[in-house]
């Protein structure tokens, strides 16, 4: 069975030969560059001190190269947008060093300036003449957005100010998606996941718009959450516009990539916290679901793609609505959050949605547990979620820096030992 077949069979809720594995297929199923470096070294893929590319500079995710994919028996390969979240392209690589000493390669326009606390400041489009849009604290591993909120004048709020970022795909971008999908489709047997921005409604990673030099409208995360309750019409108008542009882009995208891709990343908006949902089921149904439904319906009636939604936290109450909105895949399945018990999740929703994640807890077990605890959890989650298909193995969200290399190795070894459906 090829990787592509394996993933597709699992997504049809049938049993493939082995549980499929994703690593690096999306910006929420990847690995911090520092851990990628350690893993590549441990596997003997590179000579020591060989820098690893940072393909997502906000969370500092490392490139999961095809050699690593092959070495770990990963089944998914991702396609990413031309431009990063900071508005510069992923090209023209230069050397850079993390606070922990890891040698990495970053895009040419990854221009940073340390501030007086030795925090590192990042600039939209790499333009150091405008105010910075993100900060990596001294000793840190990734960036946080800097909130650039123009004072809100309640009487003059204009939804158009929050629509600036939604634009039609350029020919260059379309060519990029086409070339990458051709390349991966022909030169690998991996299932292809396309990470295509612009369909994620109200994702708070995007609200501060770290790629814009001069963001207008509502850009403060707290203000955004307030708006979900107090300024619903504003939000709806933004989402309406985003949805129209999104649908137009999906059409264009489908024309160039066709059914070479298997999965499309739609939403990364977090609906949950550790203890429960951020917003009521009613709010989800009123503000988000109609647009999710439109997007999913278009995709399912025009393509063979499966749709992917990511939401951290405890979201048990919202899952039925997510399923009803037409999503095929749920990620990251945060098993450490309240009420997110693997057995219950699988039993209640396992027939209706594919769990993509939930394989290992990345907050506690992976970074702080011992090798035996890692192995045990991996085997248990494969057994629970794997039953009857409908499962793609991945950690709960990206694997962070500072994971002991023994644990990383144990994770993939234990998975390899337990993934077969044939025994």
């Amino acid at each position, binding site marked *: 069975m090829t990787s592509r077949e394996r993933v597709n069979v699992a997504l049809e809720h049938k049993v493939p030969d082995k549980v499929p594995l994703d690593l690096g297929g999306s910006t929420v199923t990847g690995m911090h560059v520092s851990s990628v470096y350690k893993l590549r070294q441990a596997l003997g893929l590179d000579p*020591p001190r060989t820098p690893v590319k940072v393909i997502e500079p906000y969370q500092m995710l490392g490139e999961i190269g095809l050699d690593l994919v092959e*070495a770990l028996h990963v089944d998914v390969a991702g396609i990413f947008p031309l431009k990063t979240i900071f508005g510069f392209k992923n090209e023209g690589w230069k050397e850079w060093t993390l606070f922990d000493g890891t040698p990495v390669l970053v895009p040419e326009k990854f221009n940073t300036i340390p501030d007086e606390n030795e925090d590192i400041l990042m600039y939209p489009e790499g333009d150091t003449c405008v105010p910075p849009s993100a900060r990596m604290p001294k000793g840190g591993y990734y960036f946080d957005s800097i909130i650039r909120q123009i004072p809100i004048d309640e009487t003059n709020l204009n939804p158009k100010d929050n629509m600036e970022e939604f634009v039609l795909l350029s020919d260059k971008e379309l060519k990029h998606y086409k070339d990458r999908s051709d390349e991966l*489709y022909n030169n690998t047997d991996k299932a292809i996941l396309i990470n295509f921005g612009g369909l994620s409604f109200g994702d708070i990673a995007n609200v501060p718009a770290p790629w814009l030099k001069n963001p207008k409208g509502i850009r403060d995360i707290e203000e955004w959450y307030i708006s979900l309750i107090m300024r619903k019409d504003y939000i709806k108008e933004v989402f309406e516009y985003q949805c129209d542009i999104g649908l137009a882009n999906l059409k264009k995208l489908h024309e160039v990539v066709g059914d070479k891709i298997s999965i499309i990343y739609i939403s990364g908006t977090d609906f949950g916290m550790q203890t429960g949902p951020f917003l009521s089921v009613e709010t989800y149904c009123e503000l988000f679901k109609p647009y999710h439904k439109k997007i999913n319906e278009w995709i399912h009636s025009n393509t063979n793609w499966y749709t992917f939604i990511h939401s951290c936290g405890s979201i048990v109450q919202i899952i039925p609505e997510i399923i009803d909105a037409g999503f095929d895949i749920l990620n990251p399945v945060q098993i450490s959050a309240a009420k997110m018990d693997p057995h219950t999740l699988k039993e209640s929703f396992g027939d209706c949605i594919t769990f993509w994640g939930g394989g290992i807890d990345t907050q506690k077990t992976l970074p702080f547990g011992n090798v035996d605890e890692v192995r045990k959890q991996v085997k248990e989650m494969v057994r629970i979620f794997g039953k009857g298909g409908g499962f793609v193995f991945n950690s709960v969200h990206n694997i962070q820096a500072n994971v002991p*290399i023994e644990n990383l190795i144990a994770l993939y*070894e234990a998975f390899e030992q337990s993934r077969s459906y044939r025994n």
Partner: protein
Amino acid sequence: MSNKGNDKPLVKMVDIEKRFGSVQALKGVDFEVYPGEVVGLVGDNGAGKSTLMRILTGIYHPSRGDIYFRGEKVLIDSPKKARDMGIEVVHQGFGLLDSMTVARNVFLASEPLIKVGPVKLLDMEKMNMETRKVIEHAGIRTGVEPDSIVQYLSGGQRQAVKIGRAIYFKAEVVILDEPTIALSIREKDHVGELVNDLRKHNVAVIYISHDLEEVYELADKITILDVGEKLAEYKRGEVSLEVLYDIIREGRIPPDIKQQNKKE
């Protein structure tokens, strides 16, 4: 040094195939290396050299084909397995942790997973003593002490430490993938000496390089890969360097030397 068993291949790879999607990186390659033999593995970019070696070192699994070690069929399904069997990779240039001493490097190795050797890590005195043996093995004459900090060593000295370590820990196969790419001429000569040293210790050496002249000088046997196939294999002196260049450039064997081709 006993050369017992040198008439049988140490590693024999049979009909190795490797597919990546529709790309066939290896199309049924046979490859052998004997104890104490230095095999030059050459071929144009994308020929499949690294892929073949990644299969031997357990990083990739072959799509088809078998591997025999000392005549026995083996399954090399992880890098650890390969290392346990005595298959070591020595990378180019800076193969060591810069800020540590030579002794720490010898016993820690650069890969965090290997904790080889008979010595407890913190037994400094013993470590230094053993390291001195490694240095002697590697034939480094000047300037390197067990407590030298690696960042002050030259590229050649670093290579030597790694190779010395391989000999000391009784590696049976040492793979050098482009070992001289970042080295000066003098350091290159030194790598040559070290390869000869490995041969003397009856270690099988697989030497991958785009520098044909260097390979021609060092190798007992040269295997030429071309887009995933074994194009030809020559023992030392069977063909001239010029002919080798021609074969790799053309991707085929010129008709006038075809009869010398050992591949049936």
